[in-house]
């Protein structure tokens, strides 16, 4: 299976990655190889196997937390790493809708 440059560019744009033309070529090849490797699984008949959705053993369930408030972060701590702020809000470039 060979991934087109067009597909590589689309995946890169969805992931907000900027690739050089050389990188596009490189990753097209690498990604195609990875897909081919995984594709080998299609040779197996898994029609009777329940799809696995998690790495934990089957039957292992998520634990529930009681609906009780827990202390969070003080606003100053929450904003400590913000590159820009407006009061206690994070400031980001203007979003136009």
């Amino acid at each position: 299976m060979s991934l087109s440059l067009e597909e590589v560019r689309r995946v890169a744009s969805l992931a907000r990655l900027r690739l050089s033309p050389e990188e596009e070529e490189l990753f097209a090849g690498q990604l195609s190889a990875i897909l081919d490797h995984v594709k080998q699984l299609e040779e197996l008949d898994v029609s009777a196997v329940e799809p696995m959705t998690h790495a934990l053993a089957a039957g292992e369930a998520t634990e529930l937390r009681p609906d009780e408030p827990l202390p969070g972060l003080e606003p100053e701590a929450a904003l400590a790493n913000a590159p820009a702020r407006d009061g206690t809000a994070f400031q980001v470039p203007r979003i136009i809708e």
Partner: protein
Amino acid sequence: MPVSDFEVVMGLEVHAQLLTRTKIFCGCSTEFGAEPNHHVCPVCLAMPGVLPRLNARVVEFAVRTGLALGCDIRRKSVFARKNYFYPDLPKGYQISQYELPICLGGGVSIEVEGVEKFVRLTRIHMEEDAGKNVHDALGGSAVDLNRAGVPLLEIVSEPDLRSVDEAVAYLKALRAILMTLGVNDGNLEEGSFRCDANVSVRRKGETALGQRCEIKNMNSFRFLKQAVEYEARRQVELIEAGGKVEQETRLFDPQKGETRAMRSKEDAHDYRYFPEPDLPPLILDEELVARVRASLPELPRARAARYRDQLRLPAYDAGLLVADRDVATFFDAALAAYGEGPEAAKKVANWMNGEVAKLANETGLAPPRWKLRPEHLAGILKLQDAGALGGPGAKQVLEVVFREGGDPAEVVKARGLAQVSDEGAIEAAVDAVLAASPAEVERYRGGNLKLMGFFVGQVMKQMRGKGNPGLVNALLKKKLGG
């Protein structure tokens, strides 16, 4: 081909905020109206190395809603990541459910112009809300993450709706159910009950669905109506002009009353969902499902049916009462304090849907904040039955008690609103009216019996509405008839 040769086909997606104390995956408060970023922690801020922990109450509310709507409650469901970039989504993905949601199927019964219809549901799933962006004065956008991680149920209908009226009826019915279940506060303006519409059009008689557009940002029933009507017309005109509807997300602009394409959503249809590795599957035990099932309250439709079948209320009256759970509960309590049987029920319902509803609208108060208590309304009706209060007097007492509180009998005494049944006082008023209207008396005696209404009105006016109508009528007849 005119617009009337087309039909609109709609499915709705409702996002209902769940009335939990804490967020879906962390212990931060969900309280509305706090200062920006005062309800945040490392989990909902998406700091490295944190793990989500699912709120048990969210699961319980999802099961509760699913059972009430007749859904298939999946004993195993899976969370998934929905990937997109937006500043109000700190992780760069939303934890939602995709291939294996908690509820499948079910539906909502609606009634439009006397015709009943069952609107099928596709699914209900749990997910987290995003934060909020506000344009700031400095030319940027300010991000508040208090809402990030607040639990939502997304309730998706099949494309079963064929008119704006059906859409509004569906939303009102669903909203009443969620409020009755106590899982959502039904507030459209504050955004705790939000709706997106998938709208398409097709020529009447066609069975294939047209290309749909998703409309967002309709935070009232009125805006939904405007938005859908505009969008349907836009699509019909496009097709008529030989064009093609493109699948896209469109934003409703309430100021202009139109929809327009959202730039940020141009390539948003590729969310690259995959199972959330941080949360193992959710497995429901039978004991939880049974416990939730046993705790389901009487739902609006069942309540309306009870009002119709047992209390013999007209469907219209019953529908008004059950639209708000608190109003229906008030009605039940007032009726219990007042009396039994269809006649008593009709009387209490008339007052609830008439004077009480009017005062509630004027003051904008919800039933829990009324000063009027159910036993007050029953007391006013009993005073009226006993002849101590006339119709106008009863309305006045109701208004005073509604606005200021207090015991009806005390209000009657303090304000001098008691009905006058003293024959001497009524006779004096009757005599005065007859003496002042010799011409009308002449015409009445000459056979124009319709003038009785005029005389009763005049006497009542003279007695400031407090005359006992039975006695007033009897005395007038006696004096006029001779």
